[in-house]
């Protein structure tokens, strides 16, 4: 099941990916099996994938963390994160990303095993591009990639 956010302008052209380039996706999930699954699904859709096991690691990777090392910030074209994570939730991670002048244009997708309408609208209102129900299937990720590439053109 996919829920999409309303179109709010387009995507920044700084994030434009040339046709033929592989989009780089950061996947955040505290569950090892889910990380492996989402990684495989994304790679099968020709995405380059980096995984993070929690929101703090994700923030470090994105350059927003307290422990970000100089010169190690990588560019990502999309972030897909689990909602329920210990410490910082996916929702809180989403907020941090949207507060960042550097990263706020990066599409963020939230995943959850629980279908809670208030949770879904809360995430979409905060700027999530999409909300996806776990467990993820290949068709979900294909649709996701299609939306991502559509932003480019």
């Amino acid at each position: 099941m996919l829920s999409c956010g309303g179109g709010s302008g387009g995507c920044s052209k700084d994030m434009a990916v040339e046709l033929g380039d592989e989009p780089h996706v950061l996947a955040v999930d505290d569950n090892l099996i889910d990380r492996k699954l989402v990684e495989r699904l994304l790679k099968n859709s020709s995405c380059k994938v980096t995984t993070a096991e929690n929101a703090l690691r994700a923030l470090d990777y994105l350059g927003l963390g307290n422990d970000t090392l100089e010169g190690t910030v990588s560019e990502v074209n999309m972030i897909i994160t689990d909602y329920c994570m210990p410490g910082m939730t996916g929702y809180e991670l989403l907020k941090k990303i949207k507060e960042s002048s550097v990263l706020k244009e990066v599409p963020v997708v939230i995943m959850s095993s629980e279908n809670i309408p208030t949770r879904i609208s809360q995430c979409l209102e905060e700027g999530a591009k999409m909300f996806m129900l776990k467990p993820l299937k290949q068709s979900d990720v294909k649709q996701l990639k299609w939306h991502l590439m559509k932003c480019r053109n």
Partner: protein
Amino acid sequence: MEVGQMQRRLVDYTKSLFMEGFLDAQFLQLQQLQDESNPDFVVEVVSLFFDDSEKLLNDLTMALDQPNVDFKKVDAHVHQLKGSSSSIGAQRVKNACIAFRSFCEEQNIDATLRCLQQVKQEYYLVKNKLETMLRLEQQIVAAGGSIPMIELGF
């Protein structure tokens, strides 16, 4: 036993796992993610599931053995196990976890202990089934055959 027979046996065995509710359609998703460039994907994910689950079941046993049970902690572990089992298609384990979580919410110690036993039982059952299935696959590959894809009616 020749390869064709082994393949038929595997197909029948795998189908029975779906019919008996041990596995659901999500397991098919996993199988579809396996190909020539990722020939061991299912084995890898299933092995991760075994390791992860056994650790969680140990954690759950310890958490429920405390004089003052921290049900939030118990629920967090069950949530993890529910997630993993759901992601690989271990339907009966997932369903046992769903029941478990509702009793955690009620903070019912007797019921949660029973649920733990139930989840353990379902886990060991599906572990056994998956190991058997993977062994059959290995035998086919070792004999030079290929793993047949399962077509299901639903």
